[in-house]
């Protein structure tokens, strides 16, 4: 497998952010970029990252196994990360999780046969006041209901994704409601 030129460019850019003898610092950003480009961290790219940054193979392994967002296996086209922590659970997240599992026909950690979806249950995504929330790849969705979840998933299946909730709403924020 060839490492794309775009990735090599990125690597140079990243290394520049840290003092010259501290190239290891670029590990997480670079691995992140690898999985963004290739979908996951392939064994070849893992070796390439180690060589590029002058870091031993075991150091790269440590990062990949320690951080939960690092993917050493392929995942579906859409990675759905569903929050299962306190605030979201209080707002109906437990029932919603069951609904998502049924709708996708997947248990957490599984990928659908058509390679479209991977479901992952994660701990707090920092959207607690607008929970329940989930991420589809890099898109954030808040204030989920079963209807909204259905719309999101149907949209992805139909190739017409529901627009993400960007920026995070100001719901409830007295300051944000009307600045007069």
């Amino acid at each position, binding site marked *: 497998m060839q490492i794309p030129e775009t990735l090599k460019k990125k690597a140079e850019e990243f290394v520049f*952010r*840290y*003092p010259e003898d*501290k190239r*290891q*610092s*670029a*590990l*997480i*950003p670079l*691995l*992140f970029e690898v999985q963004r480009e290739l979908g996951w961290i392939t064994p070849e790219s893992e070796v390439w990252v180690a060589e590029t*940054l002058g*870091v031993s193979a075991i*150091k790269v392994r*440590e*990062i990949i196994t*320690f*951080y*939960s*967002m*690092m993917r050493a296996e392929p995942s579906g086209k859409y990675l759905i*990360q569903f929050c*299962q*922590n*306190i*605030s979201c*659970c*209080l*707002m109906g997240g437990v029932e919603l999780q069951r609904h998502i599992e049924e709708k996708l026909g997947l248990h957490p950690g599984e990928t659908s046969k058509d390679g479209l979806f991977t479901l992952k249950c*994660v*701990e*707090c*995504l*920092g*959207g*607690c*006041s*607008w*929970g329940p929330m989930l*991420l589809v790849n*890099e*898109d*954030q969705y808040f204030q989920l209901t079963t209807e909204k979840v259905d719309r999101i998933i149907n949209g992805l299946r139909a190739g017409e994704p529901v627009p*993400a909730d*960007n*920026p*995070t709403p*100001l*719901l*409830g*924020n*007295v*300051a*944000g*409601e*009307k*600045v007069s």
Partner: protein
Amino acid sequence: MIGNGSTLLLSRNFAVDNMASIDVAMKNGAYEQFKRALKMKPEEVTQVVKESGLRGHGGAGFSTGTKWGFVPKDKFPRYVTVNGDESEPGTCKDRLILERDPHLLIEGALICAYAVQAERIYIYIRGEYFYPTMVTARAVQEAYAKGFAGQNILNSGWSCGIHMHNGAGAYICGEETGLIESLEGKKGWPRLKPPFYPAAIGLWGQPTIVNNVETLAFVPRILEIGAEKFSSLGSPKNGGTALYSLSGHVNRPGVYELPMGTPLMDLIDKFGGGIPNGKKLKAVIPGGSSSHILTAEECENLPLDFESVAARGSMLGSAAVMVIDETVSIPKLMHWMVRFYAHESCGQCTPCREGTDWLLRLSKKFLDGTARRRDIDDMWELADNIDGKTICALGAAVAWPTKSYLVKFRHEFEAACRN
């Protein structure tokens, strides 16, 4: 205008269209305070922040100016690290600053870097914050283009770079030394402190100030309105306002900027619109999942500031208020809480790594209906054996709430036991 008629500091421009673009931000006063700071002596800037009474809004509540003052006089280079790893359950305020007014944060970070004479700023944002990261990264580019970052900034003779850095899914990287390790390209294993605090020995062994996003965003506002005015906004020893993340069973959840010391019940009833469906309040977690739970009675007449909440046996932490109505079973709540810490333990210390896992197993028994009375005592003992015996505060962060649930809602655990 909010609360008792005080000024909005951080959220003032949250609803302004395109505030994340530097032109709009500058029309609304961005970087004016940075320019003023550059004309002051660095120590003077630190002094103003000290006098304002600003305390860290990331969780610990330590005096920000004092922290800046800990940088050793003769050691260079120095760094500033913005902690944007917001991931304590219940906490979701920093994302609003990153998404809606990133220049306020960048300005604050630059003022901090100038005050401690740092040569680089790293903005560390948790990996799951894709959109906030994208907006902030663009704002950093703009700040460079306008000459607020880079070489010889605004002809002051001082140079400072700003770099973005994402985490990759690890709660522990919000702990300041865990964050530093992560920035160095390693597992985010917290370091033992004391003896060495990051202000003296931090990133790559150099003096490093690690401040939370919200904390740094306050800095331009302090310079703008003056230390005295700022401290007069809050309650004693708690200067200014805070962004309270309100979640759970309220009609209007959201992030509220209110003066420090705002009564908890005001936040819930007046701003949050009370509890939905006429249900009764059962409990409140006042400062993120790691704080002791408060019963409904304990919530009465409680000003939300560091001292007052501590006096009631809990902590304000990151000011993440989670509201729980009468329908929630506390053993279930405990299970969600413990599951988080068991998942996020970095594994470095045995009491935390093993203890959280055992707590998880025991807490599950109360949901499955297989628990026995002795499991309650075992959980208590486990929590007690984690508390104070670990390298970082994650140990206490699971032990404290566990104990508070067991003490204050013991009857619910007993009722869930088979014998």
